């Protein structure tokens, strides 16, 4: 446990060394949220609500979806791919801790850093500029925080899968990009899933991606009520557990497959 805390801490400090860049990032995220705000205002036109979401809830949804993204998002898929290509993975694998756990902890260090130095100030700025509604209900906040932890786990597991795939494809920039696109679309980052046609919603209900962005954002905007919140959290928890299986199976296969391309 101690060594994992240390990994989180080191990565956190590494990010802290470059913190000034994050202030520009907040500005750009705000511009991003702003442009979506105007787009959605035009889409709503005069309408009171679409799919039970009011324009204020929609603005909040977008703001929190982007800010939560700063927490769960990481580049460990690219890092793993890079370490495999450069042959560094051979050294990493002889170290006295599981490689995948280490990657996950590094991602967490990065996520915690961004949550504190990016999402929190970013949310304050966004809330001042745009008509965002922050819930006064402590329960909502607690559920939201539980939910984004699951978001992080699910997203990181999918990143691990994409990263490990490098063992088989050798060069998988394409796969990593495809994965990012699929997550943007099916996680509910750019569109709440309830906006999709019903048949599409049914398919997405069987996929893990909604646990990345849609569920935490809906909890935060109170688009989910009562038992829906618990069902959503259970869905996330189940996927967090289920995804362990493909990650480990692929990892075992990958270790047999290992070809170091030089390094």
């Amino acid at each position, binding site marked *: 446990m101690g060594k994992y805390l240390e990994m989180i801490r080191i990565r956190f400090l590494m990010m802290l060394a*470059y913190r000034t860049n994050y202030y520009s990032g907040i500005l750009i995220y705000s511009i991003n949220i702003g442009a979506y705000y105007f787009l959605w205002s*035009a889409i*709503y036109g005069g309408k009171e609500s679409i799919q039970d979401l009011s324009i204020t809830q929609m603005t909040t949804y977008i703001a929190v979806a982007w800010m939560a993204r700063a927490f769960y998002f990481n580049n460990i898929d690219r890092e793993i791919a890079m370490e495999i290509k450069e042959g560094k993975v051979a050294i990493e694998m002889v170290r006295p801790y599981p490689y995948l756990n280490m990657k996950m902890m590094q991602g967490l260090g990065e996520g915690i850093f961004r949550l504190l130095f990016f999402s929190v100030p970013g949310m304050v700025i966004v809330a001042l500029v745009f008509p965002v509604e922050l819930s006064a209900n402590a329960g909502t906040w607690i559920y939201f925080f539980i939910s984004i932890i699951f978001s992080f786990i699910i997203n990181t597991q999918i990143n691990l899968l994409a990263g490990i795939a490098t063992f088989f494809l050798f060069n*998988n920039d394409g796969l990593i990009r*495809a994965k990012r696109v699929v997550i943007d679309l099916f996680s509910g980052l750019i569109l709440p899933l309830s*906006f999709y046609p019903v048949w599409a919603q049914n398919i997405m209900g069987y996929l893990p991606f909604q646990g990345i962005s849609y569920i935490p954002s809906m909890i935060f905007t109170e688009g989910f009520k009562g038992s829906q919140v618990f069902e959503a959290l259970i869905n996330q928890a189940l996927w967090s557990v289920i995804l362990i299986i493909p990650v480990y199976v692929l990892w075992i296969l990958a270790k047999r497959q290992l070809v170091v391309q030089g390094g």
Partner: protein
Amino acid sequence: MKYLSVFFQYAGQYLKTRLTYRADMVVEIFSDFLFQAVNLVFILVVFGHTTLLAGWSKDEMIFIYGFFLVPFAIFSSFFNIWDFTDRYIVKGEMDRILTRPVHSLFQIVLERMELESLFGAVTGLIVMFYAGSKLGLEISWFDPFIFMLLVIGGALVYAGIFISLATIGFWSDSRTDIMPMMYNIGNYGRYPVDIYNKIIKYVLTWILPFAFVGVYPASYFLKREEWYTYAFLTPVVGLIFFLIAITLWNVGVTKYRGAGN
């Protein structure tokens, strides 16, 4: 002439390296298609809940998006300099570039080109023809030439902005998140600028002129006469931003100090 032959030699080598990892190339082309599909899906889903967006219909929006894909495909095939600082400054690769007798920016363009991104232009044309036929647009004999001019203008706008940002690397080699985010901002040129407020509209027109890659030039083909002035400014704005970028680059190169290796 020398530049042309260097280009073809690089392109030949490039194809060899790409064909080594065929599976990855197929996935990459496929992921490009997916990426383009995402935005179409967004438009389609949104228009499932509304009929007009600030006076623009669904097919017009799809047409604008189709147009945007063409200059964007050209840009992303040749100007992959979003990781310039990491790749060339921090790792000292710029030293190698500067010892060679071809303009440094041209070499980087060649080294980093991704020709398979040009498939995006094909998608764009298909999307435009689909939306155009639904809208009943007519094509005159000079339209293909105007189209090419506007596409080049749009690609130069993108290239100008991203090269200018890359030159920051000559003055400061610290990591920045500006580049990936700029890709996001670039997407807002795809939507009609009249949905944004005045400041954003101004920024998208004159400071980060992404509107000249999508909605302004596309409005020429959609016969939106109120935007014609902007449509025909596209090549001018493209040229100006590209020249600014080249100037910044040439000044930046003189400020470059090797990172040491």
